């Protein structure tokens, strides 16, 4: 069509074609606008509840973390396969390296169970993709690592420093929380978004003063003599949780129960066999055993999923909305974001 324009003598009938097409497009727009509201609602609510077992269960985890130990151990020991082989259900395992890929996987039904922290799960929920927090793997304190000879002793000393953190994680929330508790605002520091691998390089080369991250990354620096750990208080705790896709939770309650049973078995086992457990976690994550040894004690494997968690998560949901991070305020209780155990 483009070559028509430079021609000196206009061939009117042909030249009018784009105009006619444009009018058609505009008409289609006008016709479409009226009906655009109703159809979007139906897209979100997918499928009716068929009680039959799924063919495959898609399990994932976000980045690498020691607090995934119950999952890592059960996976290594083949306990998931053992449990679900009875129904001929296959399992797929996947590691996600960014929060949005998890949101997108949940949104397109490509993930059923994902191990992550409560903040990324809240972000998924805020995107109107229903998920349920049905289990806590562990509760861990907020940790950050600074250079061994740094003058930073407490979070109050973060003022004016360059801080690397993967945004949208529990560590990001924890960081903003400890800053506000120390009377600092996010504007008092420079927060740089860095995934663990990039952050490690930046931290070790002095590109950032503080690296807010979870175990085993903090302990890796400590064990290597390259870092000193700064801890946050109870309100900045991070919960390592299991998020279940809402549709899966509603359709396959039996599979969810059995998945939980496998995790409970692993939790009991790891407390009875800590040394072997640490060795498995070291192997699965690809970290040296001494780093995992150093990371072990901070995990509270018995953190309960109870009413207190609901209100704690609600305050995190408010925080995400008020900070302008997400577009929607999640109502944790109303939306059944936390699936409290019965009884």
């Amino acid at each position, binding site marked *: 069509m483009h070559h028509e*324009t430079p021609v000196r003598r206009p061939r009117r009938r042909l030249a009018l074609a784009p105009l006619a097409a444009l009018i058609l497009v505009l008409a289609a727009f006008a016709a479409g606008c009226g009906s655009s509201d109703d159809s979007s609602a139906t897209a979100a609510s997918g499928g009716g509840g068929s009680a039959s077992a799924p063919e495959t269960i898609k399990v994932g985890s976000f980045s690498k973390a020691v607090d995934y130990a119950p999952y890592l151990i059960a996976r290594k020991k083949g306990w998931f396969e053992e449990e679900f082989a009875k129904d001929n259900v296959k399992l797929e395992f996947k590691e996600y390296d960014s929060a949005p890929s998890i949101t997108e996987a949940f949104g397109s039904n490509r993930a059923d169970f994902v191990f992550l922290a409560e903040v990324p799960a809240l972000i998924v929920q805020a995107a*109107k993709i229903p998920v349920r927090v049905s289990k806590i793997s562990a509760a861990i304190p907020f940790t950050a690592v600074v250079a061994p000879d740094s003058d930073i002793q407490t979070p109050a000393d973060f003022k004016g420093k360059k801080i690397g953190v993967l*945004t949208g994680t529990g560590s990001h929330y924890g960081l903003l929380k400890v800053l506000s508790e120390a009377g600092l605002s996010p504007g008092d520091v420079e927060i740089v978004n860095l995934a663990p691998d990039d952050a490690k390089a930046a931290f070790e080369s002095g590109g950032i003063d503080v690296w807010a991250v979870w175990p085993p990354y903090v302990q890796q620096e400590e064990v290597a003599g390259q870092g000193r750990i700064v801890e946050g208080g109870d309100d900045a705790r991070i919960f390592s949780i299991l998020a279940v896709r809402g549709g899966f939770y509603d359709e396959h309650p039996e599979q969810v129960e059995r998945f939980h049973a496998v995790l409970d078995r692993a939790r009991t086992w790891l407390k009875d066999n800590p040394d072997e457990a640490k060795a498995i976690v070291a192997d699965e994550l690809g970290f040296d055993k001494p780093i995992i040894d150093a990371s072990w004690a901070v995990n509270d494997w018995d953190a309960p999923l109870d009413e207190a968690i609901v209100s704690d998560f609600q305050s995190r949901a408010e925080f995400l909305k008020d900070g302008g991070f997400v577009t929607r305020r999640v109502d944790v209780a109303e939306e059944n974001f936390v699936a409290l155990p019965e009884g």
Partner: protein
Amino acid sequence: MSAPLLSLESAGTVDGTPPRPDASAPADVGRPDRRSWPRRVVVAASYLLVPLLLLLIWDRAVAAGWIPSTLIASPGQAAEQFFTLLREGTLADHTRISVGRLLQGFAIGSLLGIIVGTAVGTSRVAARLVEPTVVTLIPIPAVAWVPLLIVLFGIGELSKVLVIAIGSFCTLFLHTSHGVRSADRKLIEVAAVLEKGRFELVRRVLLPSALPEIFAAMRIAMALSWALLIVAEVVASSSGLGWLIWDARNFSRPADMIVAMAVTGLLGKLSDVLLGLLAKRVLRWRDTYGG
């Protein structure tokens, strides 16, 4: 004298092919006096057709649920959010920061590329010294330098500007050295007859005859710079349009994401148009000056 000048003139138009398809477009609009207004409406319609068609498909796809509306915003939502971000000043802040990084990187890289490219194109010694190294480094995608630059120069403006500078340098280096080398031999002979020195030769003959290719390369480098800017701002950043795209995706703010993408695209287009106009102006001046 007139023969070489003629060939220089023709070099200007023949080598200037990359800018042409686009350059001809404003020319059509720029001569309204020759056309009746219905004709102009038809011309405008043919420009708007494809963008509007794409918008329509996108809008329908979101509305009909073919793509999840929680992850991808509709054009309407994006337009609404555009004005919100504009009012809040967020968009202006991020845009200013991004454009600053882009212009610095592009200017440093292009200038160095032209200087080194000219040196390599004119001097065998310089070519032997520099060319093998540079040509080996060029195939490394500028993006791959990001982790290295962060370690070497830290997380700050410098490493972001440098990524863009590397991309621009590579493009301008290749095209300038090629442009200088493909100068018309007859022109060089004339310069020799007139006993012009090497500097004069470069300034009056080699660089002008390479200018069309240099400008074409600058437009390629500019497009590449936008791509590199967005990548650089995603890796270790807290501001800029690339950061906004990443942050919006990270926290599932699909409208913000589309706005930042659209602004990037439109600014990229604007920078290309401006470079095209500049090229036209500079090359036209060459012609009139020569004539």
